[in-house]
């Protein structure tokens, strides 16, 4: 296992470092809080001549992703970063990037969407992009944000996948807090991500191709979409394979989900992102008090690990799903809907309740998490399940 350097720095800083180590050919980007320091640090690498990438300081996020599409179709390794309104502005292009099967890697600093305007963390932005055909990985910590960024390259560029990958980290909580991170050396990362060998590149001038053709009027649009579905289904095994390989290199485990104290858990919380830390902390306290509490953290949201989640929750009496995003008019938040769906075929379906929490950076205090476990224990012992979603901690 190669030597790793331990540093104390922010999530954004290590994402920028991972960008540098992955050696993209083009980085088109537009600044937005709280993503800004990723692109600032990368722009510094450009000025210092430490990267060969062409940095395209575009005039909007729509143009950022448009230029990513052009550059990736041309045959370049392309990375970018955004957040919130920026991701929303890219929405049209997110579909085009995946539909054209372009292995672009993008970091997203998870942030609330307007209105009212708010710059703090929630998952409204990324959850709004969940059906755009991107592989989506979520980080709990700065370490995971760094690791996920590196792993995204071989996942996206795998010939069996060829899909864009979004690596999501929580705005401010993970992007801006100082955390302890172990960094790989440049050579190890370089060898791990490998050299990009594009297919159907525009710059392969001897083999001219057309990208983005018209497939309507009875054309094969429907069949293209099926092949996209097959690709993202195949990506699941690739996420696992790349995770296993990076585990060997780094000594850190990477599954589609992470389970903690789930072997004999009676009550469990399903959560995404930085809040997993709070849940783990409370679950440990509760364990000391004799409560059989557990945690399931979703690392890979697209493709969604239905079977893995159902297996993790087998035997649990009551489950709380914590959503840091709304799906207005739906039965609950996006993670809740997926979790319920994952459990539909389970032999013994546990009670599942939904909490919407932390919107717009609303504080996720430990006592709130504790109250969720208390609700679960009540449900496990016969109290009727709440009809959610419950707005956890809303004044």
């Amino acid at each position, binding site marked *: 296992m190669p030597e790793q350097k331990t540093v104390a720095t922010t999530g954004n800083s290590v994402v920028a470092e991972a960008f540098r180590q992955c*050696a*993209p*050919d*083009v980085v*088109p980007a537009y600044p937005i809080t709280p993503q800004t320091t990723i692109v600032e640090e990368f722009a510094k690498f450009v000025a210092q001549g430490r990267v*060969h*990438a*062409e940095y*395209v*300081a*575009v*005039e*909007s996020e*729509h*143009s950022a992703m*448009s*230029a*990513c*599409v*052009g*550059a*990736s*179709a*041309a*045959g*370049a390794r*392309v990375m970018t970063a955004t957040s919130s309104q920026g991701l929303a502005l890219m929405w*049209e*292009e997110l579909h*085009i990037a995946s539909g054209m099967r372009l292995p672009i890697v993008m970091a997203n600093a998870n942030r609330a969407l307007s209105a009212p305007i708010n710059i703090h963390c929630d998952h409204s932005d990324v959850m709004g992009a969940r059906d755009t055909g991107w592989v989506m990985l979520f980080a709990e910590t700065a370490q995971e944000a760094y690791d996920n960024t590196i792993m995204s390259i071989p996942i996206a560029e795998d010939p069996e996948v060829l899909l864009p990958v979004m690596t999501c980290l929580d705005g401010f909580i993970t992007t801006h807090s100082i955390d302890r991170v172990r960094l790989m050396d440049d050579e190890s990362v370089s060898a791990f991500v490998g050299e990009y060998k594009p297919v159907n590149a*525009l*710059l*392969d*001038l001897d083999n*001219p*191709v*057309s*990208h*983005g*053709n*018209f*497939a309507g*009027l009875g*054309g*094969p649009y429907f069949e293209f979409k099926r092949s996209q579905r097959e690709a993202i289904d195949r990506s699941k095994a690739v996420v696992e394979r790349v995770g296993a390989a990076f585990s060997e290199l780094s000594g850190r485990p990477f599954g589609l989900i992470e389970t903690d104290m789930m072997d004999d858990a009676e009550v469990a919380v399903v959560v995404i992102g930085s809040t997993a830390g709070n849940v783990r902390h409370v679950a440990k306290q509760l364990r000391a008090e004799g409560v059989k509490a557990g945690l399931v953290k979703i690392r890979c949201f697209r493709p969604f690990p239905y079977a893995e989640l159902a297996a993790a929750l087998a035997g649990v009496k009551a489950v709380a799903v914590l959503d840091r995003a709304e799906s207005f008019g739906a039965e609950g938040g996006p993670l809740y809907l997926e979790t319920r769906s994952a459990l539909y075929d389970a032999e013994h379906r546990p009670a599942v309740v939904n909490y919407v929490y932390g919107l717009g950076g609303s504080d996720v205090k430990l006592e709130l998490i504790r109250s969720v476990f208390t609700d679960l224990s009540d449900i496990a012992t016969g109290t009727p399940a709440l009809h959610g979603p419950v707005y956890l901690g809303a004044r």
Partner: protein
Amino acid sequence: MATLRELSHREDRLEGGHRLCAGCGASIAVRQILLGAGTDPAIAGCATGCLEVSTTIYPYSSWKVPFIHNAFENSAATISGVEAAFKGLKRAGKIPADKKVKFVAFGGDGGTYDIGLQSLSGAMERGHDMVYVCYDNGAYMNTGIQRSSATPKGAWATTSEVGKAQQGKQQRRKDLTSIIAAHGVPYVAQGSISHWKDLTSKAEKAFAVDGPAFLNVLATCPRGWRSAYNKSVEHAKLGVQTGYWPLFEVEEGEWKLSSPSKALIKAGRKPIEEFLKPQGRFRHLLQPGNEELLSEVQADIDAYWEYLLKRCGEL
């Protein structure tokens, strides 16, 4: 510039057999401009629109160069990405340092004057080595002749209708060519499909400069203009002769009237009616009761002509 003999030996980079209408000005513009690209390899992009849907029906393509269509408003940003890839891959040593490739983005007036203006402005400001070509037929023709900011004042369009309360489009055209010239890019020009020699030489200049260049080309749309499909080139020529569409270029900030338009200083411009008459979209303008609107249209053209002569040092 290349002679007609030389041009006639160059490969046509937009193949026939596409599904554009008979008399469409867009394909004429593309062929003339790609002839001007010379013999270097080229990569083309195109905004959503007639040109794009009619030339790239899967699994076919009329483009004999690598081609990319992304969306409606981002032809400029997309090609700027392709050009950035070329630079990045050169720096990585994956493309030889002396390799030359031309990058060109096409868009109609809807995709350029309106929805794509920001993307175009950004690409021009960033200084990508690319040529952006607007084929201006004066409306959203692909979706059924809706008005754009390039639609001439008084013209009928399906979103600037003619009726008791309103006689076609109420507003003047946007002067996009001046807007792009104000970006200070090395080369900006206005051309027309009716003046192939002028247009091809402008394309040559546009491709030759190091940095961004912009070409705005008058391209007839017989469907939208409600005009005879076998007279498209003639109708565009009337646009030039009446001063509706002056031919000029801005080379390193220097404004210059091109010879077909410069000749009009002495010979005089034809009255705007000559441009309007063969086009059904202007029929109401020439009917009794609309004299005032018609004289406004003429006055606008006169004022723009004056402005242009001043900028070109002809006054």
